[in-house]
């Protein structure tokens, strides 16, 4: 078993990175697999918490790392032990065949090995996250998992990898330092999206004035993230399953989201396949019927005549009040006032959204089209990259730019950071 484990560890590809302080490079090992299996071993249960509590805490701890790095973790209760990547257990003094004894209550509370196992000193008073006293098992577990993944101690205020235990504050989360440290080893999260949009909502402020607010959402497969633009990260605890947050629309594989917003109309639509749904934000669910009594979902061909389906994506342009539907290499402009496709459409995407730099263009099969209020710009997403559309403001600064031109492509992960998958088993905690 030891030989096998060492062999698997040898497969972990070392990652070279620039040591920015010294301009040298350091080889550091990391797991090369994308999915790691973990288990709380039967002979290593704590005497202080229920087994379910222990497993829940560890599941949460692994998930917290998974939310910021391109690695998934899965609790595996059935595979042979030799296939388990990380085994966790509690012990006192001499424990679990470990060469390092624990020292009793106080001082050391846990230890872990790079690419290996984690042991917790059961002489410590570990408590669940809901408790105000004792040592937070969650915080310790997150720290030790950091070692397993390849992190050393970090002497930085706020870092989970500080060597000393600091009592848990309310809402403990991974620090920005920790994110970057683990991403130095494993890279950042990347991937395509099905739909990206800003969801507008209204509320009254303290003066009774109606104010408009928005939240940014990224959809992929059966889950979604809320992106906190001011903090350059996703909401803690995301992704969430689509079905949990959005009721009455398909649970996965959304093609497009459109917010038609004019002086006379304010409607949000989800599209998938040949159908579409209108969403009722007040009741937080899809409408059952439209104003004419037609049941949702409706066929795209009925609600938007001459628009093909399925579509790749779409967005509503408030400047000309057209919905731009993208399919393959073409774009259809749909005039919502006249309820018909605009004259001279469909057109090639490259003609409506020309490349600013020659050949730097998605050409077709756009994944998502997104108007961002944060940036006052339209973005086209394809794969891991995006193109920003030339805005009116851009053209004021540089009149030579083509109208609706596409700037050079960039990585989505550079602009919207840390939008990371988690294992499907973690979508329901």
């Amino acid at each position: 078993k030891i030989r096998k484990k060492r062999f698997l560890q040898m497969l972990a590809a070392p990652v070279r990175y620039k040591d920015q302080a010294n301009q040298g490079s350091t080889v550091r090992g990391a797991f090369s697999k994308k999915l790691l299996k973990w288990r709380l071993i039967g002979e290593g249960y704590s005497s202080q918490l229920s087994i379910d509590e222990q497993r829940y805490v560890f599941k949460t701890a692994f998930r917290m790392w998974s939310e910021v790095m391109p690695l998934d973790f899965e609790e595996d209760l059935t595979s042979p032990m030799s296939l388990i990547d990380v085994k966790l257990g509690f012990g006192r003094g001499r424990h679990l065949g470990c060469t390092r004894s624990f020292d009793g209550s106080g001082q050391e509370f846990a230890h872990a090995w790079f690419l290996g196992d984690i042991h917790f000193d059961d002489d410590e008073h570990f408590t669940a996250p809901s408790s105000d006293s004792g040592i937070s098992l969650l915080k310790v577990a997150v720290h030790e998992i950091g070692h397993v993944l390849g992190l050393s101690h970090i002497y930085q205020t706020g870092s989970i990898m500080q060597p000393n235990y600091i009592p848990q504050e309310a809402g403990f989360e991974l620090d920005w330092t920790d994110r970057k440290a683990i991403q130095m080893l494993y890279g950042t999260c990347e991937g395509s999206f099905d739909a990206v949009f800003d969801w507008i909502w209204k509320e009254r402020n303290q003066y009774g004035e109606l104010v408009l607010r928005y939240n940014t959402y990224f959809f992929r497969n059966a889950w979604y993230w809320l992106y906190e633009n001011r903090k350059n990260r996703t909401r803690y605890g995301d992704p969430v399953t689509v079905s949990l947050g959005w009721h009455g629309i398909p649970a996965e594989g959304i093609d497009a989201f459109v917010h038609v917003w004019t002086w006379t109309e304010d409607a949000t639509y989800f599209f998938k396949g040949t159908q579409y749904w209108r969403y009722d934000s007040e009741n937080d669910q899809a409408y059952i019927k439209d104003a004419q009594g037609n049941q949702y979902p409706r066929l795209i061909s009925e609600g938007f005549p001459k628009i093909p389906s399925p579509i790749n994506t779409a967005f509503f342009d408030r400047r000309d009040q057209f919905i731009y539907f993208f399919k393959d290499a073409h774009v259809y402009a749909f005039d919502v006032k006249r309820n018909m496709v605009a004259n001279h459409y469909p057109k090639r995407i490259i003609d409506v959204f020309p490349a600013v730099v020659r050949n730097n263009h998605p050409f077709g099969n756009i994944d998502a089209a997104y108007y961002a209020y944060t940036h006052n710009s339209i973005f086209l997403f394809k794969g891991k990259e995006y193109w920003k559309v030339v805005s009116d403001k851009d053209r004021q600064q540089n009149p030579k730019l083509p109208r609706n031109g596409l700037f050079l492509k960039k990585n989505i992960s550079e602009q919207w950071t840390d939008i990371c998958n988690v294992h499907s088993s973690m979508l329901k905690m």
Partner: protein
Amino acid sequence: EKLFHSRDHSDLQPSPQHQAELVTDLQSAQQFLSKYGWTEPVKWEGTSSKNAAELPRYGDADLMQEGASISRYGQEFPLEPTQAPAFVEALRKFQTLNGLPATGKLDDSTIAAMNKPRCGVPDNQIGKESAIVKSNSNNVTEKASGKSLNTTTNQNPENGTSTS
């Protein structure tokens, strides 16, 4: 059982027999510094039988350096000058990274820092970079005032900048 009186066990008392030994003197401090890789990096392998073994043992005389002193019960005791530069250097490093004055003297605050609950993984291991964060920084500045070694720039977007 571990003694408790509250319904939710929040006042759980550890058994006296299972209390960890604290750092109290030069020798235990030396062991602490060796154990966690401050004297020299530690080879940290779970399968190694040598790892937990013997730490280099110094006599008290070896640990003393001219000008060094130990603190017992709040007093400092000047020592006879002999050599243990490795120990003093390790102590200074530890003090610096823990936000203590880097005096090389084993005072009460240093002992208290050593006795804080901590992770069992050594701070400095063979083959691993030191425990100083160097990300997003061109320099790692050691501040003479004894403040913690930190990155000199903070690009944490959570600290203040907001978009319109």
